[in-house]
């Protein structure tokens, strides 16, 4: 039957979650407004800037254009789920150590894209890194230190 509101079940950062959603709701709204996980940011709202990037079943997506109902039965990872027991994820650590963060607004989405990249390709070339980050805009850094951080994180995550 067609529906306007319903309940969905998904995993968010490893935890099972059951939430009521509207058909029109985006995954971004589900994360920020319903689950109050405000680490993921809204910027352009039309899938071009990447600030809202999360990993949906391991794949980077711009959550502002993903219908919330599409996450039913799937797993979502956001920036809040990266650090474990207070220990930063290697990508987070590399961003900090390489000075890849300025205002910080693009960073959660940027980091999730980087995590997605490195989990699929632990030894990316510089070209591959830049191509993978095409959908993540940063107005502050000029991307240089972000790219360096990704290389360093790749090495730390076990790539050589």
């Amino acid at each position, binding site marked *: 039957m*067609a529906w306007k509101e319903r309940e969905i079940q998904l995993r968010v950062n490893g935890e099972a979650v059951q939430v009521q959603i509207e058909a029109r709701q985006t995954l971004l709204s589900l994360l920020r407004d319903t689950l109050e996980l405000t680490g993921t940011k809204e910027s352009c709202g039309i899938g071009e800037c*990447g600030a809202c*990037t999360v990993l949906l079943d391991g*794949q980077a997506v711009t959550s502002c254009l993903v219908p919330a109902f599409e996450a039913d039965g799937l797993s979502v990872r956001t920036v809040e789920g990266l650090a474990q027991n207070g220990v930063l994820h290697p990508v987070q650590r590399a961003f900090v150590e390489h000075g890849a963060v300025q205002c910080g607004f693009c960073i959660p989405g940027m980091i999730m894209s980087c995590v997605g990249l490195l989990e699929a390709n632990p030894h990316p070339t510089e070209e591959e890194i830049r191509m993978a980050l095409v959908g993540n805009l940063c107005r502050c850094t000029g991307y240089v230190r972000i790219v360096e951080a990704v290389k360093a994180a790749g090495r730390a995550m076990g790539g050589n």
Partner: protein
Amino acid sequence: MKNFFLHEPRSLDEACLTLREHGDSAKVMAGGVTLYLLMKHGLLAPEHVVSLRKIPDLNRLESSPSHGLRIGALALHRQLLESSAVREHYPVLWRAASVLGSVQVRNRGTVGGNLSHGDSASDLAPALLVLDAKALIAGTARRRQISLEEFFVDLYETALAPDELLEAIEVPPPPLGAGMSYQKFERTAVDHPVACVAALCLKNRGTPWEVRLALGALGPRPVRAHALETALAGEELTEGAIDGALGLVQEAIHPVSDLKGSASFKRELGGVLARRALLEACSRARTR
């Protein structure tokens, strides 16, 4: 954006019936990327959205040497990139998919959604046009197949009737030894093309060359440059021959001035990209 009734039909027939029932108040959703974008901009406010995601096998990508490529309408752009068959045998399509949008777009956007939107600025369209792709269309209790060229009617208008859906794109087996090229000009790396051109060149042993050229974003619909193709057929494809025929590209395109550039800029761009695509495709062609 306004809330809506979401329908999740389990078959194409059910989807088409739902569309027929709700007429103008219903919109189809594939990956939802373009649909949500249009709804957020306030350009669309459907009361009913018909999601195709629960129709089995609609996202399958199949390839065989005899039948060619069958791309289900809900296949993601990413699936094209992950397919070794596409990469090896349809490199123009693979290349177009690789520069389409961003990782995030390719993880959600579908081939069918991209084509059904009827946007002339589609990376996939020129590549599929030079591959002589066909559109398999499903309607209420009927199926039909048309060339992809006929599928595109006008800007944002396809040959789909209100109760029809694109079911799959079928691409014939690639001609042996064909050289292919995809050229794109864009403002930023995540952008829709300002202009995009695909070329395919065949060099038959003992007989003349064949050339196919398709252009996107340079008119209301993606097109094949038939006049140029006819002019170059049988010619020894030298740089001089290509340059001599380039003027015919202009007959195929009708660019408009907009934020991406002036019409005259786009015309010049079309010519430059066509030249590059033809030269590259021909250099890659192997005599068969």
